[in-house]
């Protein structure tokens, strides 16, 4: 290492007075800083290892790769000294931007191209299972049984069943239903309590068999006996059959065929089986806005009203605020008091303001109608309700424009106005040519921002 490679800090001749934040930062570097850094990176790495274990379990390999690369990049940026310095700020910032802005937007956009909605929330295989299950119905004379799960001598799960109507005892296996010999079988209170050659499953052991038990089927001519809970079983037969090859459902009674169409099984006459599943539908959701009058008409109406609302609120609120600002820009008695009064609506929480206005505008008992001696349906008529909404939102916004305009007005140098006066400009000319353009320089950005805000308010 040569002496010229790294400039060593020279002792400063004039002792610089460091500001407080700088001093704190300096204090926190060195050993303290390093250990803090290690701690935070440790937390991040620990979280990443945990997340990776979950993701590997879910076999989401792309996510695992992204996670590993990001974590390593973070470690590298914070541990490797020198060149990567700017990334210390850029990388976390970018990550937060991706996590909280870009990904939600992408996710929303992706959903917009699917049929995700009521009746279309499952995956296709789950939907097929659900259709098969909900198509089950008790056959004519279908029986119900009281169930006692048991193991046979080979430790296979069997169902010891007592027919609820006849009281006969059976043993149900995956091969079918066999009567239990009367000898060696004890039935009390309609349930098998002992059977020779079988070991009853009781207590907590019963519930650890859940998956086996709830998928257990005892075939009986076309139908099947299914356990329901832990102490009952029902005979049910399917009314729909899924053809795996053709990927269709057929109604067994009528032979009606249901084919896949936009995330559901649909018959030729339009009857659809529930549930459907989530699938991509391309631009369908967007073309509906244009094609379907039931969506287009309300959409256009709401859209027009939204624009009108934003425009009226901003222009009228600004006009009122500006007018007040110009008036209160001059010096006169109680000027400060007036200014304070006009800021008050801005200082009151808006939900309180809204409650107060709802009371003021009540048709029968409200102050507004009482004072005016009118009976305007402020909140009950669609048109008057719109007027009310605009009045209230002007009330909520004008103090803001008042403050902004007042500030902007006061920042316009007096010399400009004086110079214009000297050049012979009248009051109108001064405000039109000097004050207003300069004011708009400061206010335009604010107007655009509040228009955007009101558009989605």
């Amino acid at each position, binding site marked *: 290492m040569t002496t010229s490679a790294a400039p060593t800090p020279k002792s400063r001749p004039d002792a610089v007075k460091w500001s407080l934040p700088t001093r704190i930062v300096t204090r926190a570097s060195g050993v303290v800083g390093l250990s803090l850094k290690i701690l935070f990176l440790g937390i991040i790495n620990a979280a990443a290892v945990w997340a990776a274990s979950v993701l590997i*379990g879910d076999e989401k390999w792309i996510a695992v790769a992204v996670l590993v690369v990001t974590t390593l990049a973070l470690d590298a940026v914070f541990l490797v000294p020198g060149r990567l310095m700017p990334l210390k700020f850029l990388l976390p910032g970018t990550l937060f931007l991706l996590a909280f802005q870009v990904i939600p937007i992408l996710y929303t956009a992706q959903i917009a191209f699917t049929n995700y909605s009521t009746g279309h929330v499952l995956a296709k295989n789950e939907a097929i299972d659900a259709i098969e299950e909900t198509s089950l119905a008790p056959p004519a004379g279908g029986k119900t049984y009281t169930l006692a799960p048991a193991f046979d001598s080979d430790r296979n799960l069997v169902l010891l069943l007592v027919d609820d109507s006849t009281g006969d005892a059976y043993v149900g296996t995956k091969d079918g239903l066999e009567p239990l010999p009367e000898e060696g079988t004890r039935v009390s209170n309609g349930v098998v309590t002992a059977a020779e050659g079988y070991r009853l499953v009781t207590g907590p052991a019963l519930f650890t068999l859940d998956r086996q038990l709830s998928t257990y089927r005892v075939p009986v001519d076309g139908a099947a006996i299914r356990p329901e809970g832990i102490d009952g079983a029902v005979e049910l037969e399917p009314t729909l059959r899924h053809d795996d090859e053709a990927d269709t459902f057929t109604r067994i009674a009528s032979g009606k065929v249901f084919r896949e169409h936009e995330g559901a099984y649909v018959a030729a006459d339009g009857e659809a089986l529930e549930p459907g599943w989530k699938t991509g539908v391309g631009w369908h959701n967007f073309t509906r806005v244009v094609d379907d009058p039931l969506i287009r008409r309300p959409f256009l109406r709401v859209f027009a009203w939204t624009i009108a609302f934003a425009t009226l609120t901003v222009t009228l609120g600004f006009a009122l605020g500006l007018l007040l600002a110009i008036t209160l820009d001059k010096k006169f008695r109680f000027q400060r008091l007036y200014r304070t009064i006009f800021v008050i609506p801005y200082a009151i929480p808006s939900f309180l303001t809204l409650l107060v206005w709802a009371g003021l505008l009540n048709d029968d008992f409200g102050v507004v109608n009482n004072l005016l001696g009118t009976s305007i349906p402020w909140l009950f008529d669609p048109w008057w309700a719109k007027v009310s909404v605009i009045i209230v939102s002007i009330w909520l916004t004008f103090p803001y424009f008042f403050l902004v305009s007042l500030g902007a007005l006061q920042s316009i140098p007096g010399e400009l106005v004086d110079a214009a006066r000297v050049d012979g400009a009248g009051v109108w000319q001064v405000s039109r040519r000097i004050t207003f353009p300069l004011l708009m320089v400061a206010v335009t950005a604010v107007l655009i921002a509040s228009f955007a805000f009101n558009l989605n308010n």
Partner: protein
Amino acid sequence: MLRKFRLRVGALSMLAAGSVVILATAPGAPARVGPEGTAVRAATTVVIWTDRDREADITALANAWAKPRGLTIKVVAKAEQNNIRSDFVTVQAADAPDVITGAHDWVGELAANGSILPISPKKTTLAQIPKYTRDAFSYGKTVSQLYGMPTHVENVGLFVNTQLAKVPKSWADLEKQALAFKRKGGGRVGIDVQQGSGGDAYHMYPFFSGLGGYVFGKTRGGALNPKLVGLDNAVFMRNAPMIDRWNRLGLINSKIDNNTASQLFTSKKAAFWVTGPWNIDTVRKAGIKFRIVQVPKIKLRAVPFLGVGGMMVTRFARTHSVESASKDFVASYMGTKNAQNFLTVKNGRYPANIQSAKSVKDVALRQIGLAGTGGVAMPNIPQMASVWNDLGLAWVKSTQGAGATKARVSFKAAARAIRQKIQ
């Protein structure tokens, strides 16, 4: 160079050590991952979602069920009942409930989504649960399945302040008493029933059914048919001018909202209030002597909408391997008289189980239960979502006092709007 390298190695090893320490001490250390990628819960824990009002009772009940069976339960309480539904729609499998408490009118949507499992309770249990409550929890276009165990019934009734009025013998009697009371002035109203600017089709239903209105007709199989909208059926249209008369006389006024309705009755500015069991305590606290009856027959019996509360088994019970346990809890245990007594009477609701209903001792609760006799379960098909607003607004427009729309016009328009939405 070497020194720097050593420093870096030192930092890295410290980092690694730090990570390991944090990882080891962190709660829920890794590797609790199941074969299908879902984090495995103990296969003997049943997760139940309910609302805060019922949390303590459900916890006690579920524990009483779980302990002797060697199971454990976890009760998650949502702030409001509606949060159960909205959170359930978007929940991830690992956090999902196995059992939810809910209202019967969720069944259509949840079943159409495939989010809840059909149950088949034993005949002895079913015999104790009235058919109309079971129908309310049933759904299916071709095969009707039972999707929940009804636990309690809610409906509105006519609360009569017995110090200000007599229990009406007939509709005419009610009209006469209510109008005479209103004429005393001082802000008194005729029949106190909440609507507000948004309308309230639920509270107005006795008047709707009393004039022959209904929401959906039925298919030949007895299932609700969303294509048969009954808001403008011939009988109701013939009787609709009565609404215009009520409006003219000021018997019913849509400007009364939820809060006003309660204030009017508790401050004795109303002698008749159409409301439900959730207000029994309010009325008692105000020290008012009252009786609850069904709204008297208008042209037809003025029956209320019934809301049936109950419990459902979600599809996640299967994923979590607690399907048989959850079904045992919902389909067997929650149907029993004792469980329903415990859950409902403490909460001031009328139990669904017939034996349990017979044993209700609270006078007001018995009365509100009787006021629901013959009631119509709110349609549980998803299309009902298109009805509430339009039906409520039709009432608002026709009972807003001056400038009201003729009932025939407003209900016809509402029916048209609803048909358009349902197609």
